[in-house]
């Protein structure tokens, strides 16, 4: 893995030498230097914290609301009938349309959160619904025969059955939340956000900053994914 990474960094360095213009393609060394300049500053950490908080909040809300709505739709047919077309519509709407709509309707400070929420919601809803439908019917019969109380059944049978589907949704959803959330920050030029830093990099043709912030985004996304999957593993049926 390390060798593969080293290979691609080397390719990047060679291409950067060949291009020969830092504003078009900064070299890895220039990007590392830029990261080194950014990391010790207070501004860097407040920027990271702001975007992290907003995007994570959007993801978390989508995970909770999507799961609850899926559970409700599995219980009440009318909810399923009402929600299915809405969720399909949300899934099909371009991210840019959401971003512009949210800018029209809401405070720009909430833009990244709402955008991440709307992008992740259909993924969680769809996967959790599928997980609920794929529960083992024989285990549900067992619960019915023994009249297992609902809370016990949810913990012992339902959550373990749905957990792999929820985990898959989270794995996809974290990446989508970061992509859409940062896109929203760029389009909305949200003050003090990572998206604003990317926008500035574009304005000032500063590709070293663009790459540096992109690396930060990828690292944050991967860290969030690892943490979320670890939390999901703590759900019933996942840890033992």
């Amino acid at each position: 893995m390390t060798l593969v990474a080293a290979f691609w960094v080397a390719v990047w360095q060679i291409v950067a030498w060949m291009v020969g213009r830092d504003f078009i393609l900064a070299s890895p060394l220039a990007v590392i230097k830029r990261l080194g300049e950014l990391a010790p500053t207070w501004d860097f950490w407040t920027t990271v914290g702001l975007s992290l908080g907003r995007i994570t909040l959007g993801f978390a809300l989508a995970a909770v609301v999507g799961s609850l709505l899926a559970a409700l739709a599995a219980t009440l047919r009318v909810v399923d009938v009402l929600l299915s077309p809405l969720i399909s519509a949300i899934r099909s709407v371009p991210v840019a349309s959401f971003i512009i709509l949210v800018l029209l309707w809401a405070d720009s400070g909430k833009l990244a959160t709402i955008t991440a929420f709307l992008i992740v919601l259909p993924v969680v809803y769809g996967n959790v619904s599928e997980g609920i439908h794929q529960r083992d019917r024989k285990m549900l019969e067992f619960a019915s025969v023994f009249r297992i109380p609902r809370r016990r059944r949810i913990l012992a049978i339902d959550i373990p059955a749905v957990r792999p589907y929820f985990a898959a949704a989270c794995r996809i959803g974290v990446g989508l939340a970061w992509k859409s959330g940062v896109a929203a920050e760029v389009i909305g030029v949200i003050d003090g956000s990572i998206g604003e830093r990317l926008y500035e990099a574009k304005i000032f043709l500063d590709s070293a900053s663009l790459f540096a912030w992109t690396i930060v985004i990828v690292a944050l996304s991967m860290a969030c994914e690892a943490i979320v999957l670890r939390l999901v593993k703590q759900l019933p049926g996942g840890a033992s």
Partner: protein
Amino acid sequence: MTRAAGEGRPAVEARRVELRKVTRRYDDTVVLDRFDLKLDEGRVTAIMGPNGSGKTTIARLVLGIDAPDDGTVVGIDGRRLAAVFQENRLCDHLSAVNNVRLVLDHDDRAHADHHLRRAGLADEALDRPVRTLSGGQRRRVAIVRALAGDADLVVLDEPFTGIDRGSKAALEAYVRDRLRGRTALLVTHSATEAERFGARVVTLDAKSGQEARE
């Protein structure tokens, strides 16, 4: 109480569990055709018959997880049910003890431990996830889960499948003891097993359980 064809709701007060003129089809196959059966209160009724004669279908009807196409199932509503299914149907991620506690009214660890030990489960197996247990150990957990509680109607569908001959007698003794005074339906291929339970034996004919001999 009765469970009637197509409605699944109580209709008439009664305690004795009965299948009255029950017909059950799966697609075009008639598994039971106007089939009658009465379970004796406080006693084991054993159902025997060749594969495909409808034994498991009868078990499912008695448990209320299947409904007749015609006829009625009487006397199951309001009862506390328990079952040893053909498959173990355990929660794989839970320990043996927690699988039993899952169905107990009062979350009583000592009670679950006691019964699992009586059924021959070793101490070291009590707290292991059941997916790590052997087939015989898992079967024991499934049996204890059905019998450790206070169910007054117990269905056992070939309960000793996967139990080695050496330990079967002790397990049978546990099951006999726990079934004492309870109404039970035992699905089995073994006449001697039915005999050891002092069961009234109902033998199904090969075709659609049309005529049950007692």
